[in-house]
């Protein structure tokens, strides 16, 4: 079973004169355990693709099968539930809730999934340990460094056991050292079987992955193992 199977995925914004085709007839497969970078300059449609893959937005046409389930026609709460259960998001600006502790932030997706308090605590602490922040569990985001916040965000993304870890410029706000550490962490997670898709315009980030998909003007222009890039 493939993690992602996208067929003729198209996204159109606006109508009439304002009509913009952000993504045109895109086909893409992602197998379990892959580590992929989606690259492209701004305006290439990579944000649109990420929103579609991440179930934040719905395609205008085409089909999208995530983990064997056709999710392209889901709306509202069904979409939110699929997102909760199948996708783990990592954002460029971390997007942690500043008033919740690291632990609280990691527990949040499980709250929405209806996981019990004890189980929540256990899983969240386990994942904070995996990302190397066990002793910072009760710190709030403002008390953490950028790299640490991104680790909390990664722990949060993994906590509901998603089919796909989807990262949007995950090292964009980090210095080189912290950025490299985050990429190390992705590599470790990928080695343990997590499927990772990174959206980036940074060639160095792409070089760390196994496969690079390149977008331009809403179409895939290259899809090759990363050594070739």
């Amino acid at each position, binding site marked *: 079973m493939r993690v992602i199977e996208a067929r003729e995925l198209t996204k159109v914004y606006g109508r009439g004169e304002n009509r913009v085709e952000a993504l045109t007839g895109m086909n893409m497969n992602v197998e379990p355990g892959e580590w992929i970078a989606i690259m492209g300059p701004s305006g290439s449609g990579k944000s649109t693709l990420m929103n579609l893959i991440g179930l934040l937005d719905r395609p205008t046409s085409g089909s999208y099968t995530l983990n064997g389930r056709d999710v392209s026609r889901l709306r*509202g709460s069904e979409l939110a539930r699929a*997102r909760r259960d199948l996708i783990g998001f990592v954002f460029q600006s971390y997007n942690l809730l500043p008033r919740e502790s690291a632990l609280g932030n990691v527990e949040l997706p499980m709250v*929405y999934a*209806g996981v019990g308090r004890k189980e929540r605590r256990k899983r969240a602490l386990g994942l904070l340990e995996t990302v190397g922040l066990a002793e910072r569990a009760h710190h709030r985001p403002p008390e953490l460094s950028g790299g640490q916040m991104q680790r909390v965000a990664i722990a949060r993304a993994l906590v509901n056991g998603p089919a796909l870890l989807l990262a949007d410029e995950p090292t964009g706000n980090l210095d080189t050292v912290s950025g490299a550490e985050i990429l190390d962490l992705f590599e470790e997670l990928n080695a343990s079987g997590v499927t990772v898709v990174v959206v980036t315009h940074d060639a160095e980030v792409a070089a760390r992955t196994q496969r690079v998909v390149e977008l331009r003007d809403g179409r895939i222009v290259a899809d090759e193992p990363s050594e070739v890039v």
Partner: protein
Amino acid sequence: MGKMLRIAGMGLSGLMVNRGRSALSMLGIVIGVFAVILLTSLGNGVQEAITGKLTGVGSNLLLISPGNSEAQGDGPLAARSASTLTREDVEKVRSLPTVAAASASVPTAALAGTKTIPMTGVDPSYAQIRSVDLATGRFVEHSGEVVLETAVAKDLLKSGPKDAVGQTLKIRGKGYEVVGVLEVVEPAFGPPVPETSYMNTDDALALSGAGNVGQIVAEARSAGSVDRAAKEVGARLKSAHGGREDFNVETQKDLLSVFTLVTDLLTILLGGIASISLLVGGIGIMNIMLVSVAERTREIGVRKAIGATDTDVLFQFLFEALLLTLIGGLAGIGLGVGVSALLPEINPIIPTSVTGTSIVLAFGVSALVGLVFGVLPAYRSARLEPVEALRRE
């Protein structure tokens, strides 16, 4: 359930973010609920004071007075014409099975020495019907006896209540034996207990020269049979008066219901005025919640991205508004109950009475205000598109 509780907790922590602002917007609800509680408490207090005094007078009471709105149609003189009630009418009322006792009531004035004192001629059963309290002695039972007011006894006989009994009072040259002295009557609501001394009906009729009695007072067998008694009295007297209804039969219930109606309206009016401030408070809550949703657009986007459904977000903000109004409501109830308890301490004339109903109602209304004015902001937050919300700074 655990999930809902946790989401409610998120609502609470949302309030804590901006404590000062939350407290200020809550103040509108506090004042609104406080006003509702206090003003309805005043309304209820007035009502209880009035009905309490009224029922104390005797709820079995029937008052039969001459004159009727119908009679006014007969000309200007008809209404104020001499009493149409006779001694025979008293007997007829008394003979009815639903009537326990009846007495005439003949108002007159007695000239004793150089002073004129208000005097009412009554039958012996009057004392029982109107619950006349005596300081000493007994009530008038026979002709030639009088019962005096305390003040009159002191004034005319220069003696205290005890010494007055047994003395003789000369009225228009005729001697009357003082057989009792009245207790000082406290001013009360309801049909006024006349400040008067009492003598026998026949003596009063003779003294005043009037042919008819001024009023008939009667007592129904029980509080439950008052209405039936009133109907029977009406029918009996109407037939005795040749089919003319030239009299009025009043019961305490009529009076009570008029007062209750007035005070109910008063309470509703006061509560209504106070509700306007509650409404204003609710609009304040809506305003602050809209600001809060706008400020936290990105947070909402994040929550949705990590799996919150529209309903989850809706509930979070609805809980937040609800908590604002409920906490405000409780504070307002506390304040209202406190001030209601304090007011009579400051000035005993102010009657207040906080009823359980008004507390439950105030609490319910503040919850409703939270729901109604929280729905729009909460709905707006729930409908935010995650992509849009995440883009916001």
